[in-house]
């Protein structure tokens, strides 16, 4: 109960903090529109107009992932710079309670990207938003937020340890987009990528959203997305605890 409350309040306040940065807001506003536009032209050119909505949803999810990746990396780096990383790691709670709200908040604010992409597609390109399972679409969106937030925690554990891990992690945008089938269907990727895709929560989140959009079972994908997310959470918690200790030995919680 207390843990949930801490996570919830932490997430709300971190989201508030993010939404007050002109830079973050500008990024959040502009990037999905660019991505939606690209997606539309890619699929128009590809002569597959019936897949436009699917493409818009995929582009929206790309925005959510970009927000989680750059958002968590940026938030931890910014706090290292400001000295608040030390302050929050110094509180007597498990580091997961400190770091998970940070990545969850980026997933929540990233959700705007999904909504914005769909609206942009509707208003500018006239892509109708007729979802196969509107209710399941809502559930799949929530599952994506949770799954991506927990996946983000796994990455964030390295941001806590390594002073410039976020610079190394930022290029992870593209591989995850590709591998999880947000950009193009997984079926067109080389076979060796399949096992990697299968263990990424993003793959199943994307699949759940696609199934809710064009029709499909949805719920099994949601279940797998959440289960893999939970694995990331547990793994992230273990890593975070051990990385915290290593960061104290290597003096990487602060800049100087």
């Amino acid at each position, binding site marked *: 109960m*207390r843990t949930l*409350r*801490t996570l919830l*309040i*932490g997430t709300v*306040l971190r989201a*508030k*903090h993010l939404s*007050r*940065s002109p830079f973050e807001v500008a990024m959040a506003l502009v990037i999905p529109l660019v991505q939606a536009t690209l997606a539309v032209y890619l699929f128009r050119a590809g002569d597959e107009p019936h897949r436009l909505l699917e493409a818009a949803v995929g582009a929206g999810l790309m925005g959510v992932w970009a927000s989680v990746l750059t958002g968590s990396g940026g938030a931890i780096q910014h706090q290292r710079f*400001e*000295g*608040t990383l*030390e*302050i*929050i*790691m*110094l*509180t*007597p*709670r498990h580091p997961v*309670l*400190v770091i998970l709200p940070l990545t969850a908040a980026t997933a929540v604010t990233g959700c705007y990207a999904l909504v914005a992409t769909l609206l942009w597609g509707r208003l500018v390109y006239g892509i109708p938003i007729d979802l196969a399972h509107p209710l399941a679409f809502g559930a799949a969106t929530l599952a994506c937020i949770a799954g991506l937030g927990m996946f983000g925690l796994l990455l964030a554990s390295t941001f806590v340890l390594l002073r410039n891990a976020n610079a190394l992690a930022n290029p992870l945008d593209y591989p995850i987009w590709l591998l999880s089938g947000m950009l193009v269907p997984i079926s067109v990727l080389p076979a060796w990528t399949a096992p990697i895709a299968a263990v990424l929560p993003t793959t199943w989140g994307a699949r759940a959203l696609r199934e809710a959009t064009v029709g499909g079972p949805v719920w099994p994908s949601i279940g797998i997305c959440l289960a893999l997310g939970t694995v990331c959470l547990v793994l992230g918690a273990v890593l975070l605890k051990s990385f915290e*200790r290593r960061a*104290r*030995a*290597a*003096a990487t*919680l*602060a800049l100087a």
Partner: protein
Amino acid sequence: MESDYAIEAEGLRRTYRTRTGWLRPRRETVEAVRGIDLTVRRGELFGLLGPNGAGKTTTIKMLNTLLIPTAGTARIRGFDVVEQTREVRRRIGYVFGGDRGLYDRLSALDNLRYFAELYGVPPRDQRRRIAELLELVGLTGREQERVEGYSRGMRQRLHAPEVLFLDEPSIGVDPVAARELRRTVAGLAAGGTTVVLTTHYMAEADELCDRIAVISGGEIQALGTPAELRSRADGRRVVEVEAYGVPDTAISALRGLPGVRETSVEDRGALQLLTVQSDAHVDVQGDVLRELAGIRLGRVDSREPTLEDAYVAIVGAA
């Protein structure tokens, strides 16, 4: 197994390893703290005084669990700072100087709510404590405004720490706020909180601290009450000379004069203030003025040593 001592440290050492450059990495090790032993009683106000790079911050961060010592052990109220972090962290607070340590994009109220959660303050107590704090720092009615530097210490009062670490709290604070801050710190200590404070300012340490450790080069050079430290300069006499454009050669010449123990130069705009400490029974003023012949001089003064002179003597001898 709570201890009667607030802080016990034995043989604390810390080295930093840094790596610069990618292609041909240069590795360097800095021995920031080289063996520090201390005990601080409960309710004591303890000062760490030393020049830049002395190892004050490093020492504080080893005591507050942010850094793992390279060697040695430390306990806060009997709990080990490496292994029993949760027990230690429940009992300590940490504030550092400058406008940092709070989220300046959030309001005072939101900052307090966030830290109240992270410190596990029970929900039913939060509202009351936060209101009390806002009242205390004079922010009642303005709690929706974003925080400013002056309120950065308030986070620490949410969970009423038993041991409070203050790293140069008065840096960048105006004199009036600094006086207010000293009053607050003294009040906390009077209320039973153990306070460890680092500072560059002698007067601050002198006014506040029960005991002071003078630290330089990562080692404690002297430890005692302000009065005990002051007596380090007993048997000395100080000559102060205001001068304009003193060459380095003249200063080395002063250092070589018989009876002279310490010589320091402080730039004050165009003017330089030379402070020459000597054995009290040797009158060096004549010799000093002879060495400075031909240099434009201002006020010349001979006086009893102060705590500051004792500090210069201690750090100078290190």
